[in-house]
């Protein structure tokens, strides 16, 4: 953990609302470079909303989000594009383009954002696919592979431009324990060897315990962060809601 250095993500007093309904109220936190940071919480507590604010899909009702020191909401044109180049996102269901093969899905960002020659793009796409264990699936269409594979392919696509931060929306949700464990390994491997910062939305406790450096827990009622720390610290928290969450999940697991 390198939290001592300047954080790569800073969230200051972020509030989010859908029309009249407030989802997140005055949230502040930072994510350090190289950290595996997990946003935790029950369903409907605004985890995915928070993620969409972090990646600049939604404009905050108030507050600001800084990525590498720059305000994402205020950046326009080239500055915004450069800023978005620093992040990669894996959406909950992969969001791979259905009309393209996996290799084409990965080649697309390379084609749009780099000057690499065509064979080089294919090589890098193939390498990223082999990194997530999909070396034999270059020519498959997203519809032809399983949900877990789709998620891995989506991670590969998010990684292909060499981002500094990877945002993963529920990477292990809906996966069997073995595939889920493989996903955790993959995240740890990427964090270790590429030094990428991970921001992960999840509520899968076993996975969080394995991968997370730091966790924040969002609460539906207070619409804010009720706990933050390492997974171990949260498991022994004094706050009943947090303890209940961990105890219930551990019971399930």
């Amino acid at each position, binding site marked *: 953990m390198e939290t001592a250095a300047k954080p790569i993500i800073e969230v200051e007093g972020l509030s989010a609302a859908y029309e009249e309904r407030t989802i997140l109220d005055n949230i502040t936190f930072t994510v350090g470079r190289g950290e595996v940071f997990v946003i935790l919480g029950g369903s409907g507590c605004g985890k995915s909303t928070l993620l969409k604010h972090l990646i600049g899909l939604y404009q905050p009702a108030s507050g600001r989000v800084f990525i590498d020191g720059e305000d994402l909401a205020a950046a326009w044109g080239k500055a915004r594009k450069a800023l978005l180049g620093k992040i990669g996102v894996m959406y909950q269901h992969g969001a791979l383009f259905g009309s393209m093969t996996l290799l084409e899905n990965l080649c697309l960002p390379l084609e749009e954002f780099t000057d690499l020659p065509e064979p080089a793009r294919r090589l890098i796409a193939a*390498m990223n696919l082999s990194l997530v264990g999909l070396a034999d699936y270059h020519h498959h269409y997203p519809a032809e592979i399983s949900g877990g594979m789709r998620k891995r392919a989506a991670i590969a696509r998010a990684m292909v431009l060499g981002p500094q931060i990877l945002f993963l929306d529920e990477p292990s949700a809906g996966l069997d324990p073995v595939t889920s464990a493989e996903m955790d390994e993959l995240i740890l491997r990427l964090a270790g060897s590429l030094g990428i910062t991970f921001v992960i939305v999840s509520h899968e406790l076993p996975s969080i315990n394995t991968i997370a450096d730091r966790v924040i827990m969002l609460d539906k009622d207070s619409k804010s962060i009720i706990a933050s720390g390492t997974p171990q610290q949260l498991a022994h928290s004094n706050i009943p809601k947090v303890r209940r969450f961990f105890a219930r999940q551990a019971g399930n697991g």
Partner: protein
Amino acid sequence: MSRTTEPAATLTVDDSRSGLLLFTISGHLDLTGAAALWKPAGELIEKHRPQRLQLDASGIDYCDGTGIGLLVELERRMRLAGGTFELRGLREEFTRLHEQFDLDSLVELPSSRPEPCCLPEATGMAVVKTWQALKTLIYFIGELTVALMAALKRPQSVRWRDVWLIAEKAGVDALPIVALLSFLVGLIMAFQAAIPMRQFGTEIYVANLIGLATLRELGPLMTAIILAGRSASAFAAEIGTMKVNEEIDALTTMGLEPVPFLVVTRVLAALFVTPLLTLFANLLGLAGGSVVLLSLNYPLVTYLNQVRSAVGFGDCLGGLAKSLVFGIIIAAIGCMQGLRTGTGASAVGDAATRAVVSGIVLIVIGDGVFSVLYYYLGI
């Protein structure tokens, strides 16, 4: 020694010894750095064709996936040329990343799409596909007939609320476009016919032409084609999206068969609205023709009497009977294509396109069959 300098990464070359090429890469080997060195490095290898390539990587201070990609590319090129590649001094964390790639699987670059199949294979596949589509069609017709019969026997089993809602969307909402097109077609046809007929002083017979053509052919046909474009595509897209979202599977597992639940309601709605829209289109078509005759100074009553003398009740009924069949075709084809949707967003688009195209083709074929039938029946 030559030097290629880029803002992010640097490549230094030593080609003083024969058969050996020495590369020194240093700096930030990320996407920008690797992209900048990719071409020059490849060109240098092409130029010198070394037996050995030594890469001193000790000066690389950052290396991501693309950077490793460059190293893999150099090794790949050397292997393909039958030479050897030595990598020296790469920092441990990058070596770990480098080791995660299986170079053997990357020597042959994959094409981005599967190789297209040869002509016999493509023909065979097309035949099998057509045969499967035909089987689906037969199966679907059977299933729909059974479901419609069941609905006739037990009308209370039909979800009438859905039927009226669909009838409103496919019928009432289509009134403006049907009105506009029918009126204009009637007007244009009358106008085009009036010019030559006027030379013979027979322009009053424009009324006969408009009356017969509209009631027997154009009214039902135009309405059906508009509905195929408007509603068959909507049915296909809606049911197709439900299929993609596994909603059809959910219905099936709930014990609600998609054909009675989704298709029968749409077919009944189309059966109900298509003749009504056709009647409306007939009226507007006649109105369009009347404008031309009015402009030629014939009073409206003359036009109406002429139409009445030219067309009988049978012509109108014949047209409406056709429209009933067209209605079934439009709804059934739209729903069938929706149910046949594959997976993914583009499959829904394909289903909608197929629904419109095959709908229109079947309508025109059906119209031809009716023409022959009416001829022999003397209608």
